[in-house]
């Protein structure tokens, strides 16, 4: 018994050690990267006017923070991204449900979905600006249209993959189509839904930033474009860093949702 316990203890220790190693290297890579970047800029190996440097990024961030400007940009972009994310995810899942429900509709709409999926959505930019004006509405629409098609395709294939025999089993119990959907198809597509949401996080960021590139007077995408135009690479880098942090936070939230939803795995 005692020996077993120590063996288990050893196993746990090993797990802990492995995890520590992974975390150590994760941080080390970042620190080394930043240090080398800073060093190269200080030693003037790279032109910090073109490549910026960690210290200059920090200074820029601090200035944006003290002028209060940073937060209005962040909130604008977060709002657009979240709006795009939620509208597209909900709409996409609903459309997928309808297409799962009716095989006819699915067949009718298949070519449209395929074409819309391969179309580079930015091509619609000029039209979107004309229809929705050069404001937030156009940006959200851009985020939605980029995200929604992928959502439909992923969710529909998740729904369709449901085990035929399990459907048969429910039918033999006298289940209606809506019961089959709610008790079987939806829960078995839950992992697909989570992975779709994870993809959508990225997609809606792409949509909102792309939208801000096209139109807008505010937001992180705007800051990046503006910074590029006036050759303030510090500003571009600083905005990119903020974007990275925000995307990571949003991904983390989805992961937490995943862990609470899928306990049975």
């Amino acid at each position: 018994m005692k020996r077993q316990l120590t063996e288990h203890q050893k196993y746990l220790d090993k797990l802990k050690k492995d995890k520590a190693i992974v975390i150590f290297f994760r941080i080390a890579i970042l620190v080394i990267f930043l240090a080398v970047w800073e060093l190269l800029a200080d030693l003037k190996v790279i032109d910090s006017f073109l490549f910026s440097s960690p210290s200059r990024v920090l200074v820029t961030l601090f200035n944006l923070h003290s002028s209060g400007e940073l937060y209005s940009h962040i909130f604008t972009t977060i709002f657009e991204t979240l709006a795009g994310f939620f509208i597209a995810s909900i709409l996409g899942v609903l459309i997928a449900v309808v297409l799962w429900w009716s095989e006819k509709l699915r067949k009718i709409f298949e070519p449209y979905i395929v074409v819309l999926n391969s179309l580079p959505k930015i091509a619609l930019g000029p039209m979107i600006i004309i229809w929705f004006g050069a404001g937030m509405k156009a940006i959200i629409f851009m985020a939605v249209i980029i995200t929604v098609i992928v959502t439909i395709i992923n969710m529909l294939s998740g729904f369709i993959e449901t085990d035929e025999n399990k459907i048969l089993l429910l039918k033999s119990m006298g289940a209606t189509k809506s019961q089959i959907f709610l008790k079987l198809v939806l829960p078995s597509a839950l992992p697909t839904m989570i992975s779709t949401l994870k993809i959508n996080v990225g997609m809606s960021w792409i949509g909102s930033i792309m939208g801000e590139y096209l139109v807008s007077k505010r937001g992180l995408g705007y800051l990046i474009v503006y910074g590029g135009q006036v050759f303030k690479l510090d500003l571009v880098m600083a905005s990119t860093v903020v974007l990275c942090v925000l995307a990571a936070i949003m991904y983390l939230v989805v992961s937490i949702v995943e862990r609470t939803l899928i306990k049975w795995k």
Partner: protein
Amino acid sequence: MNKILTLENVTLSYQTKTSETKAVSNLNFSVSEGEFVAMIGPSGCGKTSILSLIAGLIKPSSGKITMFGSEVIEPSKRTGYMLQKDHLFPWRNIENNVFLPLEIKKNKTEENLAYSKGLIEKYGLREFSKYYPKQLSGGMRQRVALIRTLSQKPDILLLDEPFSALDYQTRLSVCDDVYKIIKSEKKTAILVTHDISEAISLADTVLVLSKRPATILDSCEMDIDKSLTPLKRREHPAFSKWFEKLWKELNL
């Protein structure tokens, strides 16, 4: 004895774009209350199709299926279908898997829940009722699948090769378990299998099916002592006699 299920001249053809497949042809048989019927037949002969017909999942091309005096046209409350695999839902724990038919039929009453919990307890799965299917062995899962089928209190059980996913040892013991459960709940059962010894050891009557399209070649009453468990029946002298006879009929 009281005939509760009758098939008269039942024929079934599957239609596909390129062809028509005749799966069942001119099937006639009936089942008495409390009887255990086993159907054996070569692979692909139409065994699953026959169960699906009885379950009301598909309609015969011609002929008539009567259960408790009325024609079968849709899935009935009185049949419980157990498929080849356990098909437990991995996101539901054991208890909630067992309750599934009650939810579907919207009769999750106190009484029915108590009955289902009673079955779980009686057949040795109470400790596991909060476990998820992944945490159970194949034999246990198969028992859960049977209890799930029983929870809706069906009068007729349709069993489609319920042991085929199990290894030989487990199969023998689960076979015994399942037989005990079916007999103690006094259910009528129709079992489909391609395993001759399984059919002989479990059934009162063995129906031998032809190659596709399935029709009945022979119907044999098993004269082995009914008080023996399936495992014990395998050692009975009559067992090998039946095995030889059925084996010949199948390989004709």
